[in-house]
């Protein structure tokens, strides 16, 4: 379906909910009918969602949510941890309800055509942010290995992550200690040695960010990280979503997660 480029790159749209369903015990997924926006969306970008349930009740400000599924022939999908009032209102939406979205927003991940193999390291619902990257890599013939860290098997959502990307998933769980930093470091070293990735990506855990920064520096592998921060406008206007990011001159500069981010160079991000 060939869409004329939207007059404006960012839309404020009341999209119809196609599917609203729980995932495991703590998560929920939504699929929306917005073909033009889904086609425009890039992995790592996000939408700013107005969390009002069917009857208009919910918190005042919008909530940022990574794009979990997108593409010309794919409904716009979000996968989220039901945490507070906003995500609860989203989880209360039923098919047929409308959800106000603003987006696609922010700078997504970058994949170089020359890359043949990438490694993904995600914790918890961070995998939602990295899922569309896996699909995109598969379409470019790039092999994907993914270390997914979660509390227990129920929380793993490997299927929600990999979809039909064919990514090779290495689950690590708190339940059996395999998600312990030392164990994860050993696994990463083994993968770096056995099938050296051209680039690494992470989202969702400060500890894993610091670990991946150290290892990828040691192995001189470039990387990217998707960060999170509380947001007001989501469009780069209010300066409430800044994070200190390492500047080329060695100092740090406050950059907007919603505008310069959410994806930053792995080595430039500072732990939070």
């Amino acid at each position: 379906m060939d869409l004329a480029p939207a007059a404006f790159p960012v839309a404020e749209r009341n999209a119809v909910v196609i599917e609203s369903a729980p995932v495991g015990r703590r998560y929920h997924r939504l699929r929306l009918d917005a073909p033009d926006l889904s086609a425009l969306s890039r992995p790592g970008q996000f939408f700013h969602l107005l969390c009002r349930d069917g009857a208009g009740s919910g918190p005042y400000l919008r909530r940022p949510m990574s794009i979990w599924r997108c593409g010309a022939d794919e409904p716009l999908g979000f996968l989220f941890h039901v945490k507070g009032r906003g995500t609860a209102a989203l989880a209360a939406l039923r098919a047929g309800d409308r959800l106000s979205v603003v987006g696609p927003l922010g700078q997504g991940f970058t994949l170089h055509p020359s890359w043949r193999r990438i490694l993904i390291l995600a914790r918890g619902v961070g995998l939602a942010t990295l899922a569309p990257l896996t699909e995109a890599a598969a379409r470019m013939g790039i092999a994907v290995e993914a270390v997914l860290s979660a509390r227990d098997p129920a929380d793993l959502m490997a299927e929600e992550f990999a979809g039909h990307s064919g990514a090779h998933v290495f689950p690590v769980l708190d339940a059996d200690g395999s998600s312990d930093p030392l164990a994860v470091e050993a696994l990463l070293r083994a993968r770096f040695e056995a099938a050296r990735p051209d680039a690494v990506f992470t989202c969702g855990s400060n500890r894993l960010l610091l670990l991946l920064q150290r290892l990828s520096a040691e192995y001189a592998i470039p990387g990217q990280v998707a960060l999170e921060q509380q947001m007001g406008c989501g469009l780069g206007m209010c300066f409430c979503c800044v994070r200190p990011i390492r500047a080329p001159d060695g100092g740090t500069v406050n950059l907007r997660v919603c505008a310069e981010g959410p994806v930053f160079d792995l080595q430039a991000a500072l732990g939070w």
Partner: protein
Amino acid sequence: MVDLATRIGAITLANPVMPASGTFGPELAQVFDLDALGALVTKSVTPEPRAGNPLPRLCETEAGILNSIGIPGKGLDHFIAHAIPEWRRFRPPLIVSLSAGTNAAFAEAAARLAETPGIAAIEANISCPNLEEDGRAFAMFPESAAAAIAAMRARCALPIWAKLSPNTGDIAAVARAVEEAGADAIVVANTILGLAIDIETARPRLGAGMGGFSGPAFKPIALRLTWQCAQAVRIPLIGVGGIATAEDAVEFMMAGATAVQIGTASFVSPTAMMQVIEGLRDFCTRRGFTRSADLTGLALPGRRLAAE
């Protein structure tokens, strides 16, 4: 067809709707054509670069938000060199919001802006802390408010809009004082000081402690401040505070505002300003007003409802 043209002193706007400083940027051009706005109002610029306040800088309350951004920015030199050229891509009058710590700094910056082509007016953010009055805002007292405006007036030919603070005890006195000091219009009002505490950590939710309260919950207070100023001065008023719909905008105009600014509402609906412009046109059509300017001051004591 309804005429939405709006005169604020020497400046004419296509309609009375503009953004509120600090809640708007060229990034909104990704969503709609900014040329449809009455005017463009920049984030407050300060003479020197500022890092801004510690995080978190924003939190939600009941029907509103608290913010303590701390006016981060790259300073006046960078603003004139890089930001002004970007703003010149757009047609509506450009209103530059200026914050400074002393009267002299206000005057110096205003003078430099007056020599910069493409600026229609300066919105003097005198609601920010006055470093020579132990951090109390200029706009807290008639004398300090007037002193800042007078200092700018002497060095700057551009129209000066004085943006007042709700934290004063007598906004009418401050309004009269800035009028006498040469302000061309008054923007009423900046955020009112508020606080929220996270009872699990027993710490304020904002990194800086207190913050500015804005959004729908603030509207009844901002509307009252506009009403009080309208009965104290003759220069035009620009009402701001919790406006999200055309009905809100009409309320402020009937209370005496010539134009309105929309801030926090754009976070909830980036197209809020467009909806207000459309809604204002519909209201005037329905109620038989040929000029939206005729709404200004209708609810003030002693003014019959002309259109009835």
